[in-house]
């Protein structure tokens, strides 16, 4: 199968899910398989309890957005942090990271927070491209923080202690936060005004926006306390947003609710058809053992741990482009583990590097889902989003190199309780 006709279709403006579908149909026929298998995979969208959270968070976001929560929050954060250099950029980065971890790194961040943070950054005079890039890339940056599903999944597949893995991810995440924040101070904040801090304005802004602020805080607190699951919190968020905007603020009339639902449903629909069909494509890759062969090839070329890590990064970046993170973890990790053991690489270090690689895969075409989520959410062409995220992509690559060649960043906590997690079976 040649990729050229599909690339041409995509460049001519044929919907991406149609291009993915066409590619999947042709690949299915080439592999002499039944096309119904694509739908077996598509139907697995109804298998994950965490996926339930996406439509509900989208609904919550659409409701808040329609009800003017963005304006109220901009005012509040202005009052709180406007005096700092690049203050709102720091807040945007931190909240994106936290939210990504809590929402299972499924792209929910861009949908749930994008509608709030994007206008904030723009109203503050940040370059549009910077704002777009920060939020699009921020949607994957908290991948290593608890209770990220990606980390959980890696721990299951690699049989590494999840707690250790989360501890190993803390310093790398902090490092990335500082890198992004510093970039914001240097690059993004040039046009942003700096304000004097005023208590009175802060109090007034808080009075107007406290109910809006309660939503993200409630989500974070609810998950941290372990009271509700991600999907349950998403349902609560949606109900809360609906009650807030129709009953408390009365910014949305009953008749407008259909419009809010329409916005949310089209957004969810355009994402899920792509997700569903890429599951089908992933199944074809697994069936043809493509990811396995890619790695076989690497083994032939590689003779030292350093070279192995370099090759691994290269291969994982390619895999990250072609697959969603959850399939990639499930498929690639079991193949990497024996190699890593062979080269004497600590399983925790390996885990952090693998996850960091796949995190970058959120931002790389053609299957960099965050590019498309942001494109859809902010009504910008995908290539514009890609250009906007490029500086952040470069930052992430530098970060990845640091994680790869400075194992201490991931293993600083080791030595206290060595490899006690391994069971003798």
């Amino acid at each position: 199968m040649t990729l050229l006709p599909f690339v041409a279709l995509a460049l001519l403006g044929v919907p991406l899910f149609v291009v993915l579908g066409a590619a999947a149909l042709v690949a299915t026929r080439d592999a002499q398989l039944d096309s119904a298998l694509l739908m077996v995979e598509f139907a697995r969208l109804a298998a994950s309890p965490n996926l339930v959270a996406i439509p509900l968070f989208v609904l919550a976001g659409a409701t808040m957005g329609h009800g003017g929560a963005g304006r109220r929050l901009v005012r509040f954060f202005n009052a709180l942090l406007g005096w700092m250099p690049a203050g709102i950029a720091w807040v945007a980065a931190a909240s994106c990271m936290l939210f990504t971890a809590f929402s299972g790194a499924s792209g929910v961040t861009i949908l749930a927070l994008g509608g709030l943070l994007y206008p904030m950054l723009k109203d503050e005079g940040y370059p549009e491209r910077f704002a777009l890039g920060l939020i699009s890339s921020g949607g994957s940056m908290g991948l290593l923080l608890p209770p990220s599903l990606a980390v959980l999944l890696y721990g299951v597949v690699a049989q590494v202690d999840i707690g250790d893995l989360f501890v190993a991810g803390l310093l790398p995440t902090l490092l990335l936060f500082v890198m992004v924040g510093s970039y914001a101070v240097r690059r993004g904040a040039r046009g942003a005004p700096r304000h004097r801090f005023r208590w009175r304005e802060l109090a007034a802004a808080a009075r107007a926006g406290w109910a809006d602020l309660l939503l993200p805080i409630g989500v974070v607190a609810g998950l941290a306390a372990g009271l509700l699951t991600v999907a349950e919190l998403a349902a609560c968020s949606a109900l809360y947003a609906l009650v807030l905007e129709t009953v408390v603020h009365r910014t949305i009339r009953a008749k407008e609710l259909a419009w809010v639902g329409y916005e949310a449903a089209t957004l969810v629909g355009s994402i899920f058809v792509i997700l569903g069909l890429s599951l089908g494509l992933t199944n074809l890759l697994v069936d043809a053992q493509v990811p396995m062969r890619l790695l076989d090839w690497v083994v032939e070329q590689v003779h030292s741990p350093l070279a192995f890590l370099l090759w691994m990064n290269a291969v994982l970046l390619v895999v990250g482009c072609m697959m969603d993170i959850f399939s990639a973890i499930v498929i690639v990790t079991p193949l990497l583990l024996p190699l890593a053991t062979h080269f004497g690489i600590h399983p925790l270090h390996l885990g952090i590097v693998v996850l960091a690689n796949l995190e970058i895969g959120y931002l790389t075409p053609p299957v960099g889902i965050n590019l498309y989520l942001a494109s859809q959410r902010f009504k910008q062409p995908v290539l514009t989003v890609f250009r906007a995220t490029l500086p952040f992509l470069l930052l992430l690559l530098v970060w990845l190199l640091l994680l790869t060649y400075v194992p201490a960043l991931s293993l600083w906590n080791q030595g206290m309780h060595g490899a006690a997690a391994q069971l003798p079976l």
Partner: protein
Amino acid sequence: ADAYVLKFATLAPAGSTWMKAFDAWGKELARASQGRLVVKFYPGGIAGDEPDMLKKIRFGQLQGAALAGHGIGEIFPPARILEAPFLFRDHAEIDAVRARVLPAIEKGFRDNQYELLAWMEVGNVHFFSTRPLANLDELARRRIWQWQGDRFIAAFFDANGWAAVALPITEVYPALATGLVDTVVSTPLASIALQWSGKTPYMSTRAMATGIGAVVVSRKFFGGLPADLQALLKRTGGPLSQRLIADTRRDDSKALALLARRTQPMTAFQQVDLAAQAARARKTVEALEAARYLSAELDRQVDTALADHRRGAD
């Protein structure tokens, strides 16, 4: 001649007790057939949950799979009588009864488009929980995982009034980590292989049943093989079954001993009235017979074989 490729899926992760046996079996098949029969493995659930594997077999992407009770229930539900709670007292009873009813089960698989190559076990079934259990009534307030679509387990949970959380097995680990599920029914060996045991510091020490498993290929694939390769598959099935059962029992009891040291017992299970539980299980079996899920005829065969064995053993 072209090689016949058997694409074979299992939930067992690479490096587990089960995958080691399958790998050896695959090598043996390739060797004995001089490369005419090649097995491609898709381990660790990369082909999806067991119902997904069976769909992929029906649509021709896969030709075979190693299944636990849930998957077996999607092919030939009556075979699940062998994992009814509190039916058998020890492995010897299981072995004696299985020997008697296996021909009927093989026929059941064949009538439903599958060739049964090897019978296996997944270990002894225990409760694992993130929390202690003071009395059995508390279970009604727990979030117990139930394998999505598993009518057999659902019937037993219903009979006990437990509100289960239905999930594909691939979703259980994150569900345990996020609190969507707090209690699972599993075997020590599977609990360790799937890493669930790290999340469940409490375990019931008394086994309820022994989980069943089967190595199957589709009739379509089997029927398309030349006679000598069919014979080869059937011939290697016996030794594979023996190895799988022996290895599983050995590693499962090792796993139980290990977990007994690392977990607290769920004390409520130690005060269970066994006779009452067995009676309730019997009632559930009868309900499943009435619903045509289990076969009354096969169940009588099991009862007879068990009674014969107990007479001989006592």
